């Protein structure tokens, strides 16, 4: 059932066996890699923190709810059930937030209903765009608007297509 569960130990085992055969100093090499972990997290932390502060404000102020209500007719027009609008809106901001919304939808409508299937596809076919842009481009002098807009558009169209597919598949 869980393919990743077997994949990860298999990957590590085969790599370490191969590296040992090639006489790589396993302990020292692995340690060298781990040394980079803390600086990396320190580097991306400020960007993560700001994204999370803004996301919390967006959700807690009721702004997210208002936006969901306002966009419901537009979502219906695109063939996305308005019940999953909140999920589609939260997903770019927050992975844990959208996981909670998906669990709610599965429980409320039953996991095999059309709405829950659409929600599952919407969740699985998109990513946390704002979080990723903060992490990938942390500390870079770069205009982020273009790649972020492109990713958001592509994800939204993917969700529209996914909801359309859920009617047949």
């Amino acid at each position, binding site marked *: 059932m869980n*393919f*990743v569960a077997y994949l990860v130990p298999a990957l590590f085992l085969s*790599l370490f066996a191969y*590296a040992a055969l*090639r006489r*790589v*100093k396993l302990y020292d*090499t*692995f*340690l*060298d*890699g*781990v040394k980079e*972990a*803390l600086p990396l*997290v320190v580097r991306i*932390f400020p960007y*993560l*923190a700001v994204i999370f*502060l*803004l996301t*919390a*404000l967006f959700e*807690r*102020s*009721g*702004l997210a709810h208002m936006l969901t209500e306002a966009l419901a007719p537009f979502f219906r027009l695109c063939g996305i059930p308005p019940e999953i609008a909140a999920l589609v809106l939260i997903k770019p901001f927050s992975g*844990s937030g959208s*996981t909670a919304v998906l*669990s709610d939808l599965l429980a409320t409508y*039953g*996991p*095999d209903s059309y709405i*829950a299937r659409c929600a*599952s*596809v919407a969740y*699985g*076919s*998109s990513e946390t765009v704002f979080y*990723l*842009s903060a*992490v*990938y*481009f*942390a500390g*870079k002098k*770069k205009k982020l608007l*273009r*790649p972020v807009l*492109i*990713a958001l*558009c*592509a*994800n939204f169209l993917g*969700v529209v*297509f*996914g909801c359309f*597919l*859920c009617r047949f*598949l």
Partner: protein
Amino acid sequence: MLLAGGLFLLGDPEGFLAAMLEGGQKAAVLSLSLLSLYCVWLGFFRVLEASGLARKLTAFSAPILKRLFRSEDEEALSHAGNNLTANLLGLPGAPTPEGIAAVDRFLAEGNDFAADLLFVLGATSLQLLPTTVISLRLAAGSSAPSDIFLPTLLATAASSLLGVLFVFLARKLLRKRAVP
């Protein structure tokens, strides 16, 4: 931010700081779990490099990656390749450090296009098997938890292809404007 602040002033002035602190706390907790994930995967990828296996894998995929990203930087392409593979397999936390390393090198050689492309590929989700969704559906008592596999795969393929198309189009438009 301003809109949210205004809404808090009208309704729940005490909730403003509470919401921001909650966000900060989430960021702190997430950073710690990212730290543990990065320890594991940065160690893993360092061994992959030292064993010479990374170079072999890159030699295999380099021709495709070179054309896709329009880059000659072997090391950047190797990181990008690792990032894409980890994304496809859905290894939690593994794509990010490799993606950051690749974006760093792409931007250092002034290749904004490659950085955008790698970001858009990651941000439109490449995961072949939506494991989180399947386990959530299983937990909710679904009779066919992996039923959504095919539509998800098609939808995510569509969004990634569209994303790549948009990045290429944006590059073309910018070029036209630069050379009038």
